[in-house]
């Protein structure tokens, strides 16, 4: 147990000690080597890098240098990433073998290891994080501490004003003050639907019941989305603090974090954070001696996408099949075990403490008229800078894909961007300049969703993409209501038929009609949004559907049954590389002959296309 005075003291001392993390001119002789330990970098051996650094420092007896594990820096494509502070040198794609050189050259001799600097899009080598174009248009609020602090050390969180908002709230505010602040800030739920956060809090507060609950939805199921995971891994205390504030506001004393079991690092760090907070008396009975009780438990999900839906999530916490409940009653009235329950998404919570500390005016000055603040996107797919980006609402898709994301690799062209995962839609080239906020995305047939943003180049077939998403919905539909359970299955079958070259024009009409019916009659958000990928691709890429059903061709060769791979005789030099690489010996010809592809044998794996040095196969 720590008293408030003791916590203030920790903050003061640590703040000085950690100034070098955020201030390049910090007055210190110390250096901190920050090594990313997010899931992406961990998969490429960053724990070994951490160990190596520590070992070498010990061997060489170097003092004043500390090695720190941090959360995600965001630029996952260039991982593993190592940053040295205070000078803010950014080393990319570091391997465990590079540690020796970094310590010798950078730490001992004071020179930069040029070959490990990160190459920017224009080819120049960036020395620091701020010099990289990837970071220039970003504004970090929810990710503020990610990559700055050690997520497994509560003192570092406290140093950067951690738990200060909770103290302010408990000492100086009434629940109505908090709701007022949230209302003025304009914060909306970051889980997908964008419901105003203050309203949820207000409704749950208004419910007359002794027992209430606060729940954090960390069941990030969208394929290709990892925003929430990075926050949990990089800054778990910010979620605990926000949940405590929420509990005080609505009058709850028990909280649950429902997190995917597929995120082992996040689960581990959350548990460490909870244990530390309990030890400091920030969770538990009589917090800060101010008469407020609150505690949090982790509940693991077991791999069901539908559990991201709030009522299905509640069922799952209760130990049952995760099937959604009918609404109303909303969870604010009847949630966990029938008691009023407040559910917010991870990213929503990550904004709360800062809104309290910096004020609602500051927050609402960022973003667009109806969508305030920032949004974190997981940028992935065919784009150069894959990673996590946080931008002010209203940033255009073009800025995200080209300025931050660095454009499309291999000289290909942008075809579409997909937001909102299986519930969202595809955004074509002509809408690249749409400012991204809740309303404008809805207008063009997509949705904000939780923040997955997948970029696709011109080698992607949109019909097959729609099929991919439907395949996902079919296997994740919980089966409770018929339109979703059977409707999505039928849609998937039709799409399969089209991709197999057996579709007809009436199938397109059937898809449209089915979509409408499923949207109208499904019980929960999963079914109501499941047809979106089909509707949006049919709207923007109608030609492609027509080619599939009328001309029976797939230009991208992705639909194997429709693909026809051929050698362009004028370009073929007869080198035979394609022949050597063909797994089924479908390529005929000898010596310097121009090669032919035997269509009967060809399995359309496209290996030859990627192997041909003369681009003579298409």
């Amino acid at each position, binding site marked *: 147990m720590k008293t408030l005075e003791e916590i203030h003291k920790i903050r003061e001392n640590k703040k000085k000690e950690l100034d070098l993390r955020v201030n390049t001119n910090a007055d210190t002789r110390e250096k901190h080597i920050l090594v990313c330990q997010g*899931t*992406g970098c961990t*998969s*490429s051996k960053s724990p070994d890098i951490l160990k190596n650094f520590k070992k070498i420092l010990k061997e060489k007896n170097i003092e004043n240098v500390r090695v720190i594990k941090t959360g995600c820096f965001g630029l*996952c*494509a*260039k*991982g593993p990433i190592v940053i040295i502070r205070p000078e803010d040198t950014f080393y990319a794609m570091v391997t465990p073998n590079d540690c020796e050189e970094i310590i010798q050259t950078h730490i001992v001799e004071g020179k930069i290891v040029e070959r490990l600097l990160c190459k920017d899009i224009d080819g120049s080598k960036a020395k620091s994080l701020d010099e990289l174009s990837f970071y220039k248009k970003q504004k970090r609020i929810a990710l503020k501490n990610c990559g700055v602090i050690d997520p497994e050390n509560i003192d570092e969180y406290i140093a950067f004003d951690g738990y200060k908002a909770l103290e302010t709230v408990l000492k100086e505010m009434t629940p109505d003050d908090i709701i007022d602040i949230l209302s003025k800030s304009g914060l909306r739920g970051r889980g997908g639907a964008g419901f105003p956060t203050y309203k949820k809090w207000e409704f749950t507060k208004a419910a007359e019941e002794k027992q209430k609950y606060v729940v954090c939805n960390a069941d990030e*199921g*969208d*394929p*290709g*989305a*990892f925003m929430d*995971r990075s926050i949990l891994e990089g800054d778990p205390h910010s979620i605990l603090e926000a949940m405590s504030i929420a509990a005080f506001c609505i009058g709850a004393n028990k909280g649950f974090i429902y997190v995917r*079991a*597929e*995120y082992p690092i996040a689960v581990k760090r959350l548990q460490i954070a909870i244990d530390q907070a309990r030890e400091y008396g920030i969770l538990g009975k009589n917090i800060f001696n101010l008469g407020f009780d609150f505690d949090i438990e982790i*509940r*693991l*999900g*077991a*791999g*069901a*996408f539908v559990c991201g839906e709030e009522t299905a999530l509640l069922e*799952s*916490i*209760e*130990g*049952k*099949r*995760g099937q959604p409940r009918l609404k109303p009653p909303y969870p604010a009235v009847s949630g966990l075990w029938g008691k009023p329950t407040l559910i917010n998404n991870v990213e929503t919570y990550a904004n709360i403490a800062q809104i309290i500390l910096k004020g609602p005016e500051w927050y609402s000055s960022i973003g667009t008229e109806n969508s305030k603040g920032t949004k974190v996107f*997981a940028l*992935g*797919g*065919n784009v150069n800078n*894959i*990673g996590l980006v946080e931008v002010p609402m209203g940033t255009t898709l073009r800025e995200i894909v080209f300025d931050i994301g660095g454009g499309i690799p291999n000289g290909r062209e942008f075809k579409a961007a*997909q937001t909102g*995962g299986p519930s969202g839609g595809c955004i074509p080239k002509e809408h690249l300049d749409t400012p991204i906020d809740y309303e404008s995305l809805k207008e063009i047939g997509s949705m904000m969703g939780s923040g*997955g943003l*997948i970029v*696709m180049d011109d080698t*992607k077939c949109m019909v097959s*993409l729609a099929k*991919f998403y439907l395949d*996902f919905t079919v296997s994740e539909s*919980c089966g409770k209501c018929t339109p979703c359970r059977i409707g999505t299955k039928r849609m998937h079958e039709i799409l399969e038929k089209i991709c197999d070259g057996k579709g007809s024009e009436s199938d397109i009409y059937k898809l449209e009609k089915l979509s409408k019916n499923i949207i109208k009659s499904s019980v929960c958000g999963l079914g109501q949004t499941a047809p979106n990928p089909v509707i949006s691709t049919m709207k923007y890429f109608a030609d492609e559907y027509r080619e599939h059903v009328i001309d029976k061709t797939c230009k991208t060769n992705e639909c194997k049954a429709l693909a026809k791979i051929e050698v362009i005789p004028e370009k073929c030099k007869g080198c035979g590389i394609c022949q050597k690489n063909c797994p089924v010996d479908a390529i005929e010809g000898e010596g310097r002959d121009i090669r032919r592809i035997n269509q009967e044998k060809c399995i359309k*794996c496209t*290996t030859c296309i990627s192997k041909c040095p003369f681009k003579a196969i298409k």
Partner: protein
Amino acid sequence: MDEKVNCTKCKCGKEDKFLKKLFTIYKPNKDNLIQMLNEIQEHYGYVPMYVQQELSEFLKIPMAEIYGVVTFYSRFSLEPQGKYKISVCLGTACFVKGSQKILDRLSERLKIEPGETTEDVLFTIDQTRCVGACGLAPVFTVNGEVYGKATVQDLDKVLDKLLEQEG
């Protein structure tokens, strides 16, 4: 896989210490079902039938309900898993970078469909949703170890190596 067959209900007669311990950690409260199943899956690699029966008695929940929960969540399986669990990520980021080809190749080589286990219980193919390593797409994992920026050739190499190890 050593102690996994030892149980109270099979013929070996040995006591299942894990289960006994589990029943002391958790209270016989219905809400704990999924948490307990998560630990059981982790320990045994699947949820054996006799464990479901024990759970049913402990938590006072009908078997049917437990079976319903086990089959609802993709993390739980009713069959033993292979020694090597190869999971191919089919999250969107990996999918657009060609992970389907890797999965197809895996099925072709092991002659089983995704979700199935080879007869010798060596390999299980699993198609997972996003493992979060989108920066390395496409990825596949072997018992949790991530192979990033993977190609069909990489997969072949890994499979060859594993097959050689196992003779």
